[in-house]
């Protein structure tokens, strides 16, 4: 087993391009998608609607500015209209005493987001006012305090099935999603050493040697595991210490989650090898499986924003979902290993089943 394992590293040294390129791809993707995220909010120009009071407008803009992602800049109407004419902004918000209007000069992708956010704030405010008028003395404080910070919260079904709030952290989502996604390629492509050995006949040489089949498989699996594990951990460390990404305070727990995930993916690769006939087929299948799994499992966008029931159902079968869930629990919510028993045991179970079935399929084919 040790000789097989070390042998794979020797081969890796001679042909490191594949692994190195997936490593670099991950770094480049995470860096461009999340590395430069600044604290700048998206600025929305606003002005006081004709015939409305300045004070009311200011109260509204304060209320609107509780958002984490947008900044409402209240200015003179003349100034705003001029900026719109010059094309410096595509739309603006006219704030009245108890209503608002979007002034649109040109189509803008952000319009819908801003509009729906504004509508939400106004609606919420009216409801609070109604409740106050109906007699609740401290109702505003009560509700305010029960509203979690930040204000932009979406209530959604989490994996555990409990109602909870969801915090969207773009940096963490991108780092975890992309790293786990690309590591699938690294691991399964490395596992192709087995199919290659079978094709070239060196596998038969190993079989007729005194080595046991289990030693041969374990040697290969261990190698793929190590490569994938190392890739993920090195990238996490790079972004944690190099770019100051906040991965929470429990790095050992992250190491354990990554281990379970890497095991599940090596096992998935084994299953794929058992299902397809040749290296070429496997090469064609890997991107399909990796991409589908990443899309369904929430590596490209947070699963929390998905509402399609079919996708949500399918996502339950994706190991990447459980790994992302566990990693985010640690990094964003500060949970510990004790809370992760469920996703981790699902990953391990998934791995054991896939590996067992995969090896059996391969052996049956001979």
């Amino acid at each position, binding site marked *: 087993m040790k000789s097989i394992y070390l042998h794979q590293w020797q081969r890796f040294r001679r042909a490191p391009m594949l692994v190195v390129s997936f490593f670099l791809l991950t770094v480049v993707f995470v860096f461009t998608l999340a590395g430069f995220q600044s604290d700048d909010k998206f600025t929305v120009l606003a002005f006081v609607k004709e015939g409305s009071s300045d004070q009311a407008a200011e109260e509204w803009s304060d209320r609107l500015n509780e958002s984490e992602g947008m900044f409402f800049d209240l200015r003179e109407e003349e100034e705003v209209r001029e900026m719109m004419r010059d094309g410096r902004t595509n739309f603006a918000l006219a704030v009245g005493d108890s209503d608002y209007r979007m002034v649109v000069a040109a189509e803008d992708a952000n319009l819908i987001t801003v509009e729906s956010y504004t509508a939400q704030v106004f609606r919420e405010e009216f409801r609070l006012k109604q409740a106050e008028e109906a007699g609740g003395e401290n109702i505003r404080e009560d509700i305010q305090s029960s509203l979690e910070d930040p204000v932009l919260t979406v209530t959604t079904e989490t994996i555990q099935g409990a109602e909870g709030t969801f915090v969207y952290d773009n940096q963490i989502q991108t780092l975890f999603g992309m790293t786990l996604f690309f590591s699938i390629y690294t691991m399964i492509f490395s596992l192709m050493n087995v199919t290659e050995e079978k094709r*070239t006949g060196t596998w*038969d*040489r190993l079989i007729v040697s005194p080595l046991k089949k289990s030693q041969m498989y374990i040697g290969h699996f261990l190698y793929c595991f190590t490569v994938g594990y190392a890739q993920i951990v090195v990238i996490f460390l790079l972004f944690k210490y190099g770019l100051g990404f906040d991965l929470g305070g429990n790095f050992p727990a992250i190491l354990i989650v990554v281990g379970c995930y890497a095991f599940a993916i090596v096992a998935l690769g084994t299953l794929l090898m058992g299902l397809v006939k040749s290296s070429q087929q496997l090469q064609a299948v890997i991107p399909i499986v990796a991409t589908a799994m990443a899309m369904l499992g929430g590596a490209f966008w947070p699963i929390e924003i998905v509402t399609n029931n079919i996708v949500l159902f399918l996502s339950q079968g994706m190991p990447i979902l459980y790994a992302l869930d566990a990693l985010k629990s640690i990094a964003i919510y500060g949970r510990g290993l004790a809370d992760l028993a469920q996703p981790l045991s699902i990953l391990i179970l998934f791995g054991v089943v896939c590996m067992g079935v995969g090896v059996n399929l391969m052996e049956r084919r001979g």
Partner: protein
Amino acid sequence: MLETEELRKVYKGTAAVDSVNLFLEKGESVGLLGPNGAGKSTTISMIASLIAPSAGDVRLNGKSVLKHPNEIRKVLGIVPQEIALYPELTAFENLKFFGRIYGLKGEALSRRVQEVLKLLGLEDRQKDLVKTYSGGMKRRINIGAALLHQPEILIMDEPTVGIDPQSRSYILDTVRKLNEEKGMTVLYTSHYMEEVERLCDRVYIMDHGKVIASGTKDELKSILSGEEAILVEMDRDYPGLVKELEADEAILQTIEIDKGLKLIVPKGSRLLGKIFQAAERHGAQISNITVQVPTLEDVFLHLTGRKLRD
């Protein structure tokens, strides 16, 4: 020491190997001769416990290899038909790895690798990547990878396919040396009868999954003791002449070769005059005429009506 008993392998209803009985005595060099698709590789794979037979058994010193595959794995070296090496590694690294999986380590392993490289004449090139090697050199390393653990039995599956004559000659000499000097038992598979004639004491001839003849070279050739071959070389092909000779009942077989003919005739039949006359009638220019003693190729031809390398 090694024998097969009614060995049989069926693929999709057709028997690739059918009731094959072979035996190898210690120190022998035995040839397994047959055209492509005869079932040689399949037979070898079953002996090496790589594939399971559909029926029959393989015995090593009386013990079933099917039940105790590890017994044979320790003493067997097998040279596969395809080059089964790691092309991105050097010859040295390849050999070292194959030695290590047989449990060799450290100093003993390094010494053994150097011995094998020397035997193969590749000491100078050991640090080069195998993918930069010529076909003949790859073939040599392919053999070397089976020799590190000093096997008692060496099974070679067409080890000289597609290489230059010098490399082939070198390989044949090496195998001879291993057999004669180290007392290694050799089973040599080939579809080149010259190789088997040169290397082996005893020969099995296979066709369509069956052993159709076996024995020492002389025994096999005595099958043809009543016949001889006349080789007629001419300036070009003469189809009319072929037709005439084919019709002649005194000639057992007429085979067309490039610019000439091969005639199988009963031994001692005085046919040369007849051949010259026939050639004259068809205006054929005979450039050479030879009477040949039979080869294993002729034996195969006789048994199957086909040439080995069709």
